[in-house]
């Protein structure tokens, strides 16, 4: 459980993050990927230039971690149907063709790096399993659309 050093400042940084950055990212899955991308692979620390400039770097790190955990909790508890909708909206917002994005997700499984640290292993497994199924469902859906076109 994350225990912020200074809850008031972390809360302010969190609100700022929601208002300025996350509100522009459509959907929880996209937010999860975005937040995970602010984490350094080597240190596990989060960094966001704008947030670190307005607040302390440590405070920004804690706010990003908090947002990451909360977003993961929401997406982890979502139904499979909701997750398919989230993935579809994420895929459609990409600059690449949706088939290419899904193929990359199926092969490389980039969503694995979107897991927050120390998440319960069964919850992590449910998320990974659900995304795998959602990718298969969308691939099938687009395949049908191509055949019908």
């Amino acid at each position, binding site marked *: 459980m994350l225990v912020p050093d200074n809850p008031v400042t972390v809360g302010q940084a969190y609100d700022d993050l929601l208002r300025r950055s996350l509100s522009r990212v459509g959907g929880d899955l996209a937010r999860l990927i975005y937040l995970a991308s602010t984490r350094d692979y080597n240190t596990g620390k989060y960094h966001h230039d704008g947030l670190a400039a307005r607040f302390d770097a440590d405070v920004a790190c804690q706010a990003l971690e908090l947002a990451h955990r909360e977003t993961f909790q929401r997406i982890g508890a979502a139904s499979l149907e909701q997750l398919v909708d989230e993935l579809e909206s994420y895929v459609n917002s990409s600059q690449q063709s949706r088939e290419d994005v899904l193929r990359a997700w199926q092969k490389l499984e980039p969503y694995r790096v979107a897991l927050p640290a120390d998440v*319960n292993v069964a919850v*992590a497994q449910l998320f990974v399993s659900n995304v795998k199924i959602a990718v298969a469902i969308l691939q099938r859906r687009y395949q049908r659309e191509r055949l019908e076109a």
Partner: protein
Amino acid sequence: MMDLSGLIAGAVLLLLLIALAIKGWLHSRELQDPALPTADEDGASICPEEFVSRVFSRDDGDFVRKLGASDIERLFQKERRKVALLWVRQTSLMIRKLMAAHARAARQSQNLEFAMEISILAQFVASMAACAALSFAIQIAGPSVVPSLAQFAQRLSRRMAKVHEAFEASALTKTAGGTA
């Protein structure tokens, strides 16, 4: 003669159940994602209640069935079984760890309450039986047929954790009172 054949049939059935439970446990180990930490490493962490409802609910299964794609349905069944079996193994491990911790604390306690110990033991046996039954049912029919049993196992494990916490707090108070 009839009694003997009944006994043999019962023994065979029991062995079959035990074999299936072990198969389920081994299966959950094999199926677990190698990129994720193992349930053994993560045995003490708490799993949120909404997660258990999600894994054992029928909603996702109904959604997949409506798609009318047998390969996706098979993938869903396989993946959901994997998650459910992992959760059962994690819960069972947590219960065993709690019981071991309680046994250690009880050995050092000088004021054991017999009724409380019997109650904890009964809860431990019931929890382990529920986990074995869950593992068996998930293997045979999938997690969506046993949501109540899963919730029962989760409630029991949480109750055991609370009872153990209360026991430790009470032991600490008595020790502090004795030394004061």
